[in-house]
């Protein structure tokens, strides 16, 4: 019983942690990027100020916006927040871990995208439509690639539960695997696409013809925009935590470990995010954005890597 109570407690801490850390991660990436471009850059804490300011502003709503447009930011934020809460960050001892596995997590992110794309079409401007349509095309490539990654990892570990994947990986019995390397590369590619980062999409752009994510949310303002932006920040943290949880789970606390281990988990998690954010910034500054129709080639490559990884495992296991 105390174990369950502790799991609930860690779950709540986890939800609070991702919420608190997500804007900092985005701010950190922006700050490192500016430094690399020889600019001074805003403080890494700027996103907190942005969100607070947006929350205080009025909502400007198009005349024909429906209830779906107003409800979507809440649904998107909730879905991504719950999804981020499911990824073990500092401990794999989470209350929600057995009720939703990696497949459910991918599907939950799919729900968020579904409503985001619908909201993009609600007001009926061309930008919303262009963003939604491109977002769904990217998803059509990214989601199967993501599931192939899930398959590779799940077959290797024997479970789709994220907490158990982390526990298994940290036990060190996996060793170096070709399939895991393929899955890691594919997951990084999917993460870049899903988070609207360069080279798929430019998170800093306001040039309508090249953007995907920004085009969809162009009509949002005030608290709605704050939620949508916050959800995007959470999603970036989620993907980084996911990569850390599957491929670098060292330093994470496990069921049965004490509070000290959990604190150590917090430290290592923050360090991992800092390194990951810096790596993303370096990657983004060293590469150019690609044309929209090259996205298919990029993510098709990710899908192929994912399938290859899964096939290697399908063939090698159980013979």
């Amino acid at each position, binding site marked *: 019983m105390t174990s369950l109570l502790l799991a609930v407690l860690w779950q709540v801490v986890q*939800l609070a942690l991702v919420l608190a850390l997500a804007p900092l991660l985005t701010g950190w990436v922006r700050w490192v990027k500016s430094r690399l471009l020889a600019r001074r850059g805003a403080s890494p804490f700027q996103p907190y100020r942005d969100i607070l300011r947006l*929350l*205080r502003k009025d909502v*400007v*709503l*198009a*005349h024909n916006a*429906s209830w*779906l447009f107003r409800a979507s930011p*809440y649904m998107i*934020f*909730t*879905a991504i*927040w*719950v999804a981020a809460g499911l990824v073990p960050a500092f401990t794999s001892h989470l209350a*929600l871990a057995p*009720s*939703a*596995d990696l497949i*459910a997590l991918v*599907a*939950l992110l*799919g729900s968020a*995208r*579904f409503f985001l794309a*619908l909201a*993009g*079409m*609600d007001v*009926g*401007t*061309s*930008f*919303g*439509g*262009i963003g*939604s*349509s491109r977002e*769904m*095309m990217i998803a*059509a490539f990214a*989601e*199967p690639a993501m*599931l192939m990654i899930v*398959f590779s990892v799940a*077959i290797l570990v024997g*479970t*789709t*539960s994220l907490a158990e994947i982390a526990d298994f990986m940290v036990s060190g019995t996996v060793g170096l695997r070709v399939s895991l390397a393929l899955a890691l590369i594919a997951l990084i590619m999917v993460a870049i696409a899903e988070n609207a980062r360069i080279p798929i999409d430019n998170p800093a752009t306001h040039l309508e013809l090249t953007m995907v994510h920004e085009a969809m949310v162009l*009509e949002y303002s*005030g*608290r709605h925009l704050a939620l949508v932006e916050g959800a995007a920040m959470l999603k970036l943290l989620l993907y980084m935590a996911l990569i850390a949880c599957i491929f670098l789970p060292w330093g994470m606390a496990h069921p049965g470990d004490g509070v000290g281990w959990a604190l150590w988990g917090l430290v290592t998690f923050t360090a991992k995010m800092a390194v990951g954010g810096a790596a993303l910034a370096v990657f983004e500054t060293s590469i150019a954005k690609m044309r*929209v*129709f090259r996205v298919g080639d990029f993510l098709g490559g990710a899908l192929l890597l994912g*399938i290859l990884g899964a*096939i290697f*495992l399908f*063939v090698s*296991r*159980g013979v």
Partner: protein
Amino acid sequence: MAFAGVAILCLLLLSVSGIVLARRRGGDGLVYGGTGMVCAVLTVWAALRLAGGGVDEVVLPLGLPWLPAHLRADALSAFFLMVVNFTGATASLYGWGYGRAHHAGHGPEPGPVLPLYPLFLAGMNLVLLANDAFVFLVSWEFMSLASWLLVLANHREEGTGRAARIYLIMAGFGTACLLLAFGLLAGGSGDYSFAGIRAHVPTALAGALGVGLVLLGAGSKAGLVPLHIWLPLAHPAAPSHVSALMSGVMTKVAVYAIIRVTFDLIGEPVWWWGGAMLVTGAVTAVMGILYALMQDDLKRLLAYSTVENIGVIVIALGMALVFKAAHVPVIAALALSAALLHIVNHSLFKSLLFFGAGAVLSATGSRDLGRMGGLIHTMPVTAFLMLVGAAAISSLPPLNGFVGEWLLFQAILNGPTLPQWILKILIAVVGAAVALAAALAGACFVRAYGTAFLGRARSPAMETAREVNWAMRWAMAVPALLCVVLGVMPTPLLRLVEPAARLLVEAGPFDGRAYQPWFWLAPTSAVGNSYNGLVFLVAIAAVSAVLGLGIHRWASDRVRRSIPWGCGFTEPDPAGVTQYTPSSFGQPIRRAFGATVFRARDTVEMPEPGDVRPARLTVRMIDPAWAWLADPLVRLVNRAADAIDEIQFLTIRQYLSLMFFALVALLVLVAAIQQWH
């Protein structure tokens, strides 16, 4: 059993009375009401039978003197009876409301629909109860012909004639294949009762041919690619409640035929039968949803999406078959319960979506997505229920579509334990195909829902649309509610299908589990791989409550209304012409996926500067199933018909000699076969 017989007799009586009542005031209420009641009662009866277990057989002295009709209700029949009659009940309610709505405006007259509607349902019920090949095929034809006539109900509408003709040809082809399949599987004994077929062990070749013929025969009815060509023409042409039955339920009766033969009648399966089903299913799923993504006609889009869902169901069945062949009943049961769950799910959300499309059609007179838009403002209830349907069919958690897909993925994850290495690779690729189909389904329904219900009106009819009547709304609300309930609590349904799974693969969906608390799905082991929709939903609700309270407490809640940002374009735009159209929404996917499959090409005709003509965008696509299979076949049939036409104008003497020589040729053939044996 007697009970089901009486119910089917009631349906036949309702059909006869439909002829008389069609012209009377309130007659439609009697027929639809009666049909709905019979269906509702049959649903409950089937569910109780399923829960109670047991097999009920009866031999009726009907038909030829030495060929009595065998009927039987086992767990599999009961499961399908439940699915068919539940949708039958909601469709009856909807059909009644639909008829009312149509008194005002467009749509079919009730005259031809009323007598045929109960007949169609009776045919489907009889197929599920049949226990010999004769009753099966006769009821199969009953079902086909009644639905064919229902397709013709709107015969004045353009394209209906063609749809009906192609449907008739495909239905004939399907029945012929099934006829041959039963003949092969029964062997030379001449015992065509299912018990006789079950007892007869076919040779390897006969078994393979039998499976192939059933996949062709029932597959053409279910809509397996490339035999799906009739389906997107015929399903939308019928009145909407019949479309819902055809797409949501009649395809399931075809799936029943596939299950009955491959899992029950034919005996011990061979692994590559399942492999063939996996390949067919994967091609069907991906092609079906890609076709759907290119459609501008809402009902046709839904029909193509049925093709996709049938593909997913056949994939799950193929998985069950390969695991059955490998003697791993626990995983076979997992895959089979994924298939059965998806059958229920699809019958729910597809009927809901067809009802919604019918509601839009009756309120606006349009099925063309390119002319819709903004219906969420004028038809709020329909829009909300359609949103539930669209989310469920896109397999979003915590709705029912997701649970079925989750179970299927869990079965796929067990692929590596199979002994055949080719199956291991195949299953990995099939898994990717399922994921691709699911992602494309999401895109498809964002496109359909977004262009029909969101945005601004693309034609004046959308602004004057009114919400549909209560009967139609309730007919949509019931399946929508069940989509949520089954998504959150799928375990009771899985327990209900347990006898059917046990009958077919000798294991239930819960056999592999080490622990069985309520509402947990943990199909293969005690650790990991678990899903709990209820906890999931509670977590989502709690988190969104915290979020809502936080925003309410800390954020400004003032709202100002303004014109949307059009990048400087501030002219009034009443027709919504600056919006993205459905074709422009589909363009990136058309370009990424359709360039090779459909050889899709966009050509832009841009007038010279100064010229006031509008620019023109033409999209050209080729449906490979038509280009490579159907069209050559049609040409062949036409040529053969022309050749045979020659003998229509012979003299009596020539006819007599023709018959004489034909007789001699046949006798020689028989003699040769006798000699050879």
